[in-house]
């Protein structure tokens, strides 16, 4: 279903062949670079779900520093919609994490503006960082299905969604919930698709994700287990699908591409990840209007 992710699957397959036919090995390598000036990182994705809406501020760090990046505290964070409704976000629970005082929800077909004021460069003058994001109307997920399958001697559940894709150039993002809890909220876990290959068609029986079966868990390495969602018969799986902007789609795609460094066969030269934040910060301000479908694992 997903153009990029399904092609990447085949590319992964090809890389698998390379690995079995070469005596490749890995070794640590020490990369010495001049450290870039620190930059403010702003990230947040507000949703149409009634929940505490959240923006995170942190500072960039030298790439191979062994300490976590520092949070940025004491900033003024405001989100405003086009009708003048304003949320003021504060560090109620944790430094550097700015949330709304009460659960709030974004409205569909509405434009939201984020304003962050802080003296990040410590010159005594506050800088202003702004970003805008539009909440798309809801796409109607009809249903979803999980089908058992076997691939390279391992068992998986194939996740299929059923949805009418509207006309025009659209981009989508998906999140999963397992037994009512959101499966890790990390950019590398977000699935994204464009409609380039199935514009204005009814999508059915096309798999866009494989969940590994818990019965095979001892066949996976520990590091892989951390990143996978293993399903057991009877689990309740929910999928949330939202239309997103082309720009945010590219942001997630770029994050996933640059996350692991270079790919000598299928990747291009390293390039910086784009942002929609004005004022010199990195990161993203996004909006999400999810339509849900669910099923039990057979």
């Amino acid at each position, binding site marked *: 279903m997903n153009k990029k992710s399904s092609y990447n699957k*085949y590319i992964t397959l090809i890389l698998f062949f390379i690995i*079995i036919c070469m005596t490749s090995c890995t070794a640590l390598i020490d990369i010495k670079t001049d450290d870039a000036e620190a930059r403010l990182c702003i990230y947040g994705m507000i949703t149409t779900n009634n929940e505490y809406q959240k923006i995170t501020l*942190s500072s*960039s760090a*030298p*790439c191979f520093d062994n300490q976590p990046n520092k949070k940025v505290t004491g900033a003024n964070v405001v989100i405003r919609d086009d009708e003048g409704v304003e949320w003021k976000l504060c560090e109620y629970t944790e430094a550097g994490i700015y949330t709304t005082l009460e659960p709030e929800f974004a409205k569909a077909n509405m434009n939201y503006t984020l304003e962050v004021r802080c003296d990040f460069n410590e010159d005594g003058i506050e800088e202003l960082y702004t970003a805008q994001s539009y909440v798309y109307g809801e796409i109607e997920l009809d249903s979803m299905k999980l089908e058992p*399958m076997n691939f390279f001697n391992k068992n998986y559940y194939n996740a299929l969604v059923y949805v009418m894709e509207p006309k025009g150039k659209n981009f989508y993002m998906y999140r999963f919930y397992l037994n009512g809890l959101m499966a890790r909220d990390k950019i590398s876990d977000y699935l994204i698709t464009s409609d380039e290959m199935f514009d204005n068609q009814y999508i059915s029986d096309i798999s866009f994700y494989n969940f590994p079966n818990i019965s095979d868990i001892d066949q996976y390495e520990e590091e892989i287990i951390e990143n996978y969602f293993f399903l057991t018969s009877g689990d309740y799986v929910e999928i949330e699908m939202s239309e997103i902007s082309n720009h945010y789609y590219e942001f997630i795609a770029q994050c996933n591409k640059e996350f692991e460094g270079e790919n000598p066969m299928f990747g291009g*030269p390293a390039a910086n990840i784009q942002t929609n934040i004005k004022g010199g910060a990195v990161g993203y301000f996004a909006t999400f209007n999810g339509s849900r479908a669910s099923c039990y694992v057979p």
Partner: protein
Amino acid sequence: MGKVVLSYILVALSVFSSQKLYSQVKEIILSGKIIDSQTGESLEGATIYLEEISKGTTSNHKGEYQLSVESGEYNFIVSYVGYENLKGNILLNKNLKKDFLLKGNIELSEVVVTSTASRDNITAPIVGTERLSSLEIKRIPAMMGEVDVIKAIQLLPGVQSTSDGGSGFSVRGSAPDQNLILFDNSTIYNASHLLGIFSVFNNDIINGIDLYKGDIPVKYGGRLASLLDIRTKNNMPKRFSATGGIGLISSRLTIESPLGEKTSILLGGRRSYADLFLKMTEDYKDNSLYFYDLNAKITHRFTSKDRLELSAYMGKDMFGADTQEFNYKNTALSAIYSHNFSADFYSSITASYSDYSYGIYSGMQNYEMSWEASISDYNLKADFTNNISSLWNISYGASSTFHKFRPGLVCQPGINDYKIENNLSFEYSAYISNEQTISDKFTLKYGLRFTSFSNVGKGTVYSYDNNYEVSDSVIHKKGDVYNTYYAWEPRLAFVWQLSDNNSIKGSIVHNEQFIQLANNSAAGSPMDIWFAAGKNIKPQKVDMISGGYFQNFNDDMYEASAEIYYKRMTNVIDFADHAELMLNKYLDGEIRSGKGKAYGLELMLRKNSGKLNGFINYTISRSERTIAEINNGKTYLAPFDKTHCFNIAANFELSPKHMFSATWVYATGMPTTYPVGRFEINGEYFPIYSARNEYRRPDYHRLDLSYTYTPKPNTEKRYKGEWVFSVFNAYGQKNPWTISYIQKEGGTPYAEMVYLFGVLPSVTYNFKF
């Protein structure tokens, strides 16, 4: 196509009629062929030398030679690598056609190894050319025992490998797609097997290779950087013979045989057998993984003046697992008809077809799909050479190529097929050149090539705004010529022979390129597609000036050269940050073009004969690009810029039984973009990068060794065998192939490199009967 055929007929007619206009010539022309007395094989690069006037020449790829001299009596020496010298006396008072038969002492382990035929390096008005014989290529210690043409040329000055162990190469700082690779006159678009580890050329069927590093003969065009001309054996064997080898990766067999008195056949095959081992493993027993090459060539001589060569190549790589399959294949077919009107006037007409395609297939439930792409060329050309006098050695001809690119078709059940439109284009060209011996010391070569390149419908052309977003589209009907570029490509070269043993050469060339590869990764992949110039993409252009000093020592035992070049490129392409190059309808919108510059100095010393022979070379160079939308418009290093390159290839023959070879390569690390910072989102770290190619990878170096043991070097029997033991990367240098950033849950990132090769020993058994 009718117009094309007609234009050839017109060209041919004008040639025949103009032939009668040539006036009498004063010089006497000695010409003929130099051939193997036993097999009848034409010897390319053999030398004939007239002692009295210290003048000589080398035979061309058909074994033909020609010398213009004043009348008189001369002592001559005809020589060729691995053959006994032929000496004698000849009286020249009229034009004479004489063939020389050389007796071979060549066996699997002959003593002498030379590459460039002696003196050619001093006397020919060609700058920046490299020649390797099949034998010389074979001597180079081979990775996993697979003798490889491309790996061999990567040892030459000015030639860089683009990734460790890969078969892409960069010539004088240019991109790998700026090299024209011709295999018996057919273009090879992807010369790699096993995703780049081996090249598609089976050395056993190769006669030799010529690499022109910019000063491409005017007969050829369409690429900026180089021509790699690979020719299969031009055989006319007297008897059946077979050559073969059994190695760890593949086995190969080549047979040559006469078919009657006028026809001969050459058949070669090679297949890898890693999949046979896979079948023995539990995990991978259902997988297939192999490549093969098949070559066939039939040569028929109608008369001593007319010859037809039919050549075919097919090669395929196959990766299959479970219900998945990935394959890619090359097909190249050519038919060459040559006719010699006289010893001074010969012609050939070539029809060739070349195709590269790949396919990915999945039969897995809910993942059923097929994805196919290909590129095909249909080419027809006519070439004429007419040596009238020392002042007029004219070559001319015309060619036409039809390119058909199918960038991708994806079929999946349940949704409509996804197709990137085919891209069709015609490339017509005509050329004329003359080689003029102005004095004993000075020879000039000049020529002009004209090309027209047209995009032909059916096709959709998108327009892009300043942000490279699609703003409009125009659909062109089938057969519509909707865009044409014209190119004039002049080439000029001279040789000024200071003495018998040294010369100065120089050249100025202008080359243009109309098709290019959509690839921006370091190693490239078999799935890279080619795309053509068009309304949005202008042809790439290069102007190159180069020159060199050439010196031979000790009766040509040593050859030394120092060459410099400077290239200026316009419309050179690169790709937008995060460009999507596969299955993209709007590929043109991902292209950014600008200027490029490259310059360098190449020093080479060869020892052609003796127990110890080989070469050492050193290149210092720089290649950079300036493109408005990349790196904020600041000049950056081209991906294949390597400041220093040092290569040694040496062979030492202890005795006819024992032969040792070694190569050592050193190169400055490739330019790269490193992360200079990181930002964090939800516990994951993402890089903030330096300027484009601001840093370099660690320097590259590697030593390869081989030992050839010939049990019975002097046997009278037909069957001869040898063992080759080799070690690739003998001291286990870990050269990075890729650098990744690893982050574990809750941790911070660290850098890790993948290196492809540890110490790789191998053994091969070669035989000949």
